[in-house]
């Protein structure tokens, strides 16, 4: 993303000019169009530029390679004006040809083509003017452009796409230097970056899968910052002199899904009873070391479209839960299966204990990732505990996966099948009227609540721990970090 230099003073004269930043997951590619992964996006942010920039701290869209952008009244076209002062790290200027090529590439990418359903085509009006022609308005489009439509040098990519994925050339603030498989990626600040050379010269991204190790590495100074620390270690980090922990409520939402097509769970009363039995606080305390926020509004947080003070989620009510179960014919209790990834077994155990209180015996089946998702897709489960991340602040993108009846393979695992919701979502996606959209999403949220298809439990804490001397670090809900802002 382009570097809106909001932060005021920059201390270029610090003694340190290098930064080691740790990340938990090994990345698989540095080709910006061949991933849909947050960890990878962090690196893209440093190496590449998009037409627009997503400020992850404020969730605003800001100019990037395009110095301005304008959405037409009907939302069907977007016009942009390109900046001409950007150069790729190999010295070539960024041309309209590169931009068009890049757009084409992301739209064809198996990883990213879903984002561009609304885009008919992208055309060059002239050398510096670009137009997106849409087939329907899409409120999320600027975010997609900012996050995924990184600009790559056409000539270089075409010459050797595989080589490019391993040693990319972009026009962002950092130049790629070296990638040591399974260990680290090195980059250095590009002195020719038009918005000014990044304050930290050398940056190393270090893969550390084990969080306990990451903490030791932070303590010994072998890494200067680490994203996604473990909740268990928060107190230790906070109490360690020289380390700072920044947290913010993350964009993920964790919830319990109930398979509505299941024989037992198709009974609305049973589902409602289950929803009433969940004690969110106990899940957070028992499984998240108390370091998470109760999700009391589904996916929607304050400030997002669809958020309403009037929305009231049903309170926990064990007695009523029991009564409902009895009504449903399960006065003597009931056994259900709860599937989860093995990393979420602790959460499942709390839920198990919660449900026990209304007389439901839960058998936990912990599965390895691929088996877990296979079962979800095939509807081969009764209850499932998992999470879903929101890339963009506009709910439409998330909701189309998780609530639309055709989304059973991609998020609507509880198999919600409501024509009413489908219709509302269809309208919400294309509407450009904020008020109308507010109403639509409020309605959807209420409908979902009433459907008892799932119980939202918590929003985890996104965090970054870092050396207290490192400045400019802010936690972001998405977990993406723009190191251009960091300085010693």
């Amino acid at each position, binding site marked *: 993303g382009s570097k809106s230099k909001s932060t005021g003073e920059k201390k270029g004269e610090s003694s340190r000019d290098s930064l080691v930043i740790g990340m938990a997951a*090994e990345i*698989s*590619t540095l080709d910006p169009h*061949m991933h*849909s*992964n947050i960890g990878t996006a962090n690196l893209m942010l440093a190496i590449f530029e998009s037409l627009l920039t997503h400020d992850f701290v404020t969730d605003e869209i800001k100019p990037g390679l395009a110095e301005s952008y304008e959405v037409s009244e009907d939302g069907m076209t977007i016009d942009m004006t390109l900046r001409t002062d950007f150069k790729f790290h190999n010295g070539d200027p960024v041309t309209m040809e590169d931009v068009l090529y890049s757009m084409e590439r992301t739209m064809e990418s*198996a*990883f990213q*083509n*879903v984002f561009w359903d609304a885009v008919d085509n992208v055309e060059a009006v002239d050398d510096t003017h670009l137009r997106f022609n849409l087939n329907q308005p899409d409120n999320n489009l600027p975010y997609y452009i900012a996050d995924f439509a990184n600009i790559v040098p056409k000539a270089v990519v075409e010459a050797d796409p*595989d080589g490019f*994925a*391993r040693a990319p050339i972009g026009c962002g603030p950092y130049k790629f230097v070296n990638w*040591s*498989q*399974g*260990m680290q990626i090195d980059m250095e600040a590009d002195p020719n970056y038009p918005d000014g050379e990044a304050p930290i010269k050398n940056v190393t991204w*270090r*893969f*550390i*899968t*084990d969080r*306990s*190790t990451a903490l*030791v*590495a932070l*303590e*010994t100074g*072998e*890494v200067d910052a680490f994203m996604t620390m473990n909740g268990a270690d928060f107190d230790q980090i906070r109490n360690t002199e020289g380390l700072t922990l920044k947290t913010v409520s993350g964009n993920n939402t964790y919830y319990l899904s109930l398979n509505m097509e299941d024989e037992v769970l198709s009974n609305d009363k049973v589902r409602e009873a289950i929803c009433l039995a969940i004690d969110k606080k106990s899940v957070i305390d028992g499984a998240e070391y108390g370091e998470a926020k109760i999700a009391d509004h589904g996916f929607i947080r304050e400030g997002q479209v669809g958020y309403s003070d009037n929305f009231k989620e049903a309170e926990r009510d064990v007695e009523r839960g029991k009564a409902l179960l009895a009504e449903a014919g399960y006065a003597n209790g009931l056994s259900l299966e709860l599937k989860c990834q093995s990393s979420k077994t602790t959460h499942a155990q709390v839920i198990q204990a919660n449900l026990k209180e209304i007389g439901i015996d839960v058998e936990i089946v912990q599965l*390895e*990732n*691929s*088996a877990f*998702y*296979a*079962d979800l*897709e095939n509807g081969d489960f009764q209850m499932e505990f998992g999470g*879903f991340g929101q890339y963009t602040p506009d709910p439409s993108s998330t909701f189309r*996966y998780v609530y639309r009846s055709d989304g059973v*393979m*991609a*998020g609507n695992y509880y198999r919600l099948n409501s024509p009413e919701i489908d219709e509302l979502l269809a309208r919400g996606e294309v509407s450009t009227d904020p008020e109308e959209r507010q109403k639509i999403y409020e309605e959807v949220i209420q409908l979902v609540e009433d459907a008892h298809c799932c119980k939202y439990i918590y929003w985890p804490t996104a965090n970054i721990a870092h050396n207290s001397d490192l400045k400019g670090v802010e936690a972001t809900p998405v977990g993406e970090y723009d190191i251009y802002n960091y300085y010693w």
Partner: protein
Amino acid sequence: MGRFVLKRLLQVIPVLIGISIIIFTIMQLSPSNPARLILGEKATEEQIEALSAELGTDQPAVKQYFNYMGGLLHGDLGNSYRTRMPVMDEIVDRFPTTFFLAILVMVVSTAISIPLGVLSSLRQNSLFDAITTIIALLLTAMPSFWLGLMLMLIFAEKLQWLPAIGSTEFIHFIMPTLTLSAANIASNMRMTRSSMLEVIRQDYIRTARAKGAPEKVVIVKHALKNALIPVVTAIGMNFGWSLGGAVLIESVFSMKGLGTLLLNGVRTKDVPVVMSAVLVTSLIFCVVTLLVDISYGFIDPRIKAQYENKR
């Protein structure tokens, strides 16, 4: 002996083919679709189909297998589904770490366990024996992730002698080696001890003593060599395991090794990666087993005679 080695080397081929079939079958058995695992939960049907076509995973399993094996014959290990890079590169990149670690572990654990085992066999039922046994067992029962963290807290954080993470320099290997050796030490030590106890009561040991040989010579030259066979077997097995099973240690010390590659491969059903990683370790393993078998011949001439007369 030469013929024996040659024959055994030829046997490596069917073993590798067997392993490749087993692994491939196992990978096919797991229900998930690699394209889905790569693209993530939000991917649509079409995206998955497109990627599957690109990866070739939509083809019949047998065909995929032969494609892979065909490539293998030409020295092409295929491209990783996940990273699209040639698997060969990844393996070449990571193998040395794993191999070096395995060697170090073997050396360290052998160097510690054999003398300890010998000493405790000589002092059977003494205090020394009891203490070494208990320490050895403590080491085995200690989860390696815990031991790893403790070492890290002591040596990296408190004393600041060693770096906590990394796998590029020798110094990085010290703690992982200790951690991995811990479990091996115990079992090798016990094995040595028990084997020595068998041998030490043989008549030829008495003969050696009657020659006036110092106890050290009696032990090392006469007893140990006779006691070595099960120990060498165990060392070989452990070496193989450190080669393929050091995932936990790699992750604790953040080393780039084959274990992590393999585990990620399994998790994302990255068939070429898993196949290649297992085949490479298998190959090494076959060689190690062969070396162990050959060493039997050098340790015990009667076994050598069995090899040569191919009874």
